[in-house]
């Protein structure tokens, strides 16, 4: 019986077994940012410890950075202090820091792949749950807490229990106007927000095989929203083509050697799995959330569920979610008025996301009364978008084109919902209060769906608004 990628990468990075029988696992790459690492550096200092492998550690700022004016000091004193602490800590410990205006700053999960730091077969960790994004390259990529950030800084290892592996095969082909975001929302809707607890997800099948790397990142990004500890896709030619020539990737002959090594991590054809789930890609439609977890999702043509059709706790949860969202049971989700449209985040803030929207939004205008912002995921995405004139296209359509950062994904910077505003968002979480207002409402969807909703002033089917059905 062969091995799957998870087993191969795990075995390759295993240092030993701890007394409580947890495994000690080496982390090939450690990414840090300003929210979850300052405290870890403080803990190191308290213990008089040094960073063991500064050359395997990279820092960026993303969560708290303003997206309108990034000149220092920021208006928000604490935000400014957090960046200063990160700058000092990285300098003290000899860690490379992608500062604003360095040309490399951006959301940590956008930066790693685009620089080529993220490479197949690695164990990667970061004090951020969406580290699962990097799994798109065939990595075991784990979100960790601050004490674990401390552990990795000090030892480059983590104490971990092994995971089970569930293979999710997405068969068939996607319909026109159906995107990677819809695939991941559909999977979470199908398996539940805690369906993945204890698992690493291996995404496979023709739909995944045909995806670009950026689409694969969107899928892996949301593994965590389905409860999985991480998600990955086996490295293939698409992966190697993406990595070729990237800044931090071996070049020339060394690249060929690296490809050979990378390819060897892919799951064997006869690998075993703890579970296999088959999803029919042809059934997936543009998907939007109606509730307060990413699993509370329906396709855009469906109606909001009616709590009276379920019982017990489910009924309670559904009623609470609908009350919070101020949605009528049984009403169509399409047509729900929106106040804000947000395109960005580590889920959908990459160049292809903006290209996809630019392609359809030309000639359309954001509806009156809708505040629409587009926030590139990194300085590189921003530069590329500008070089292609995408910022123009967005601005002409009535979007504001902002500077890179996490922005309204979790609103730790000044980009926030106000009161109970409804936001059509390309991000990954629709938790209560997620976008900066305790009563703010988030409806998750793909970037083209956000664009369709922005121009319609309400949740709308991109296939209809942009005539995508005919175009295929």
């Amino acid at each position, binding site marked *: 019986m062969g091995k799957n990628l998870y087993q191969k990468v795990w075995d390759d990075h295993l240092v030993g077994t701890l007394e409580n029988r947890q495994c000690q696992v080496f982390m*090939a790459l450690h990414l840090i940012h300003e929210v979850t690492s300052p405290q870890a550096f403080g803990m190191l200092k308290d213990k008089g410890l040094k960073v063991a492998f500064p050359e395997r550690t990279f820092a960026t700022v993303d969560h708290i950075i303003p997206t309108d004016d990034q000149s220092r000091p920021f208006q928000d004193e604490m935000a400014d202090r957090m960046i200063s602490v990160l700058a000092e800590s990285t300098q003290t410990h000899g860690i490379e820091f992608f500062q604003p205006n360095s040309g490399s700053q951006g959301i940590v999960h956008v930066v790693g792949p685009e620089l080529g730091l993220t490479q197949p077969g690695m164990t990667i960790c970061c004090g951020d749950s969406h580290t699962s994004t990097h799994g798109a390259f065939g990595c075991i990529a784990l979100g960790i807490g601050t004490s674990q950030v401390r552990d990795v800084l000090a030892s480059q*290892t983590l104490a971990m229990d092994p995971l089970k592996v569930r293979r999710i095969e997405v068969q068939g082909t996607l319909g026109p106007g159906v995107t990677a975001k819809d695939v991941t929302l559909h999977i979470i809707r199908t398996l539940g927000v805690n369906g993945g607890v204890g698992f690493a997800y291996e995404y496979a099948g023709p739909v995944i095989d045909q995806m670009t790397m950026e689409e694969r990142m969107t899928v892996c990004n949301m593994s965590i929203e389905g409860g999985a500890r991480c998600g990955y896709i086996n490295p293939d030619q698409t992966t190697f083509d993406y990595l070729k020539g990237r800044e931090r990737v071996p070049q020339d002959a060394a690249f060929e050697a690296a490809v050979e090594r990378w390819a060897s991590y892919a799951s064997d054809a006869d690998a075993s799995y703890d579970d296999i789930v088959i999803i029919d890609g042809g059934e997936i439609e543009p998907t939007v959330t109606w509730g307060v977890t990413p699993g509370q999702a329906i396709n855009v043509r469906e109606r909001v569920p009616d709590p009276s059709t379920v019982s017990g706790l489910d009924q309670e949860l559904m009623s609470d979610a609908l009350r919070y969202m101020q949605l009528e049971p049984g009403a169509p989700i399409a047509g729900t008025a929106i106040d804000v449209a947000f395109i960005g985040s580590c889920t959908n803030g990459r160049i292809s996301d903006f290209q996809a929207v630019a392609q359809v939004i030309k000639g359309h205008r954001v509806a009156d009364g809708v505040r629409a912002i587009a926030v590139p995921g990194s300085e590189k995405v921003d530069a590329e978008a500008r070089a292609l004139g995408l910022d123009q296209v967005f601005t002409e359509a009535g979007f504001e084109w902002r500077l890179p950062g996490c922005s309204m994904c979790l609103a730790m910077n000044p980009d926030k919902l106000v009161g109970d505003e409804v936001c059509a968002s390309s991000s990954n979480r629709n938790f209560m*209060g997620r976008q900066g207002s305790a009563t703010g409402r988030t409806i998750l969807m793909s970037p083209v769906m956000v664009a369709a909703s922005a121009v319609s002033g309400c949740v709308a089917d991109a296939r209809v608004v942009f005539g995508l059905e005919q175009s295929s």
Partner: protein
Amino acid sequence: MSDLHQRSGRAVYVPGNDIDTDRIIPARFLKCVTFDELGPALFYDERFESEGASKGHVLDAPQHAGASVLISDVNFGCGSSREHAPQALQKFGFKVVIAESFAEIFHGNCTTLGIPCLKMAAEPRGMLADLVTQLPEAEMLIDLQTKTLIFANQSFNFDMLESSREAFLSGRFDPLDELLVAKSKIAEVAARLGNVSMSR
């Protein structure tokens, strides 16, 4: 060694499934460079109106003041990996969390901080929650060795992730010292994996 396997304290029931880390500690409180001030912000948006007036949340009920055992429902602590959530619970005074299930990263963070996460099925948990609500002054006695807890003269069984239970029983829930022991083995793995030409 009894202090390692026992916990005791008064309890409070905060009902809800899928209580995520943003609810446990709203994102705006994540702006900090130490965790010291997080306690009062625990469940802030559920406890207070935007102007700061109390909403009469159970955590603020006088009879539950000083409770150190938190009982909740399914998939507690889902959402973000940030340790601010367990840190806020700990700073608020919680030493144990009981739920039907826990999100994994949250669970791991709790263990490292020394907060045991006890798993209890819906039915006994419902009974326990009712009792706790009726008898807010009563002490709960938790035994990690036998995986039982005693409350109001009734005994309840719970489950725990075995590696985490062992970590608590041995007092080694913070793995850092042990991780550092393997220095030469770590260097070996690092060398074998090679420099991936990442740094400039």
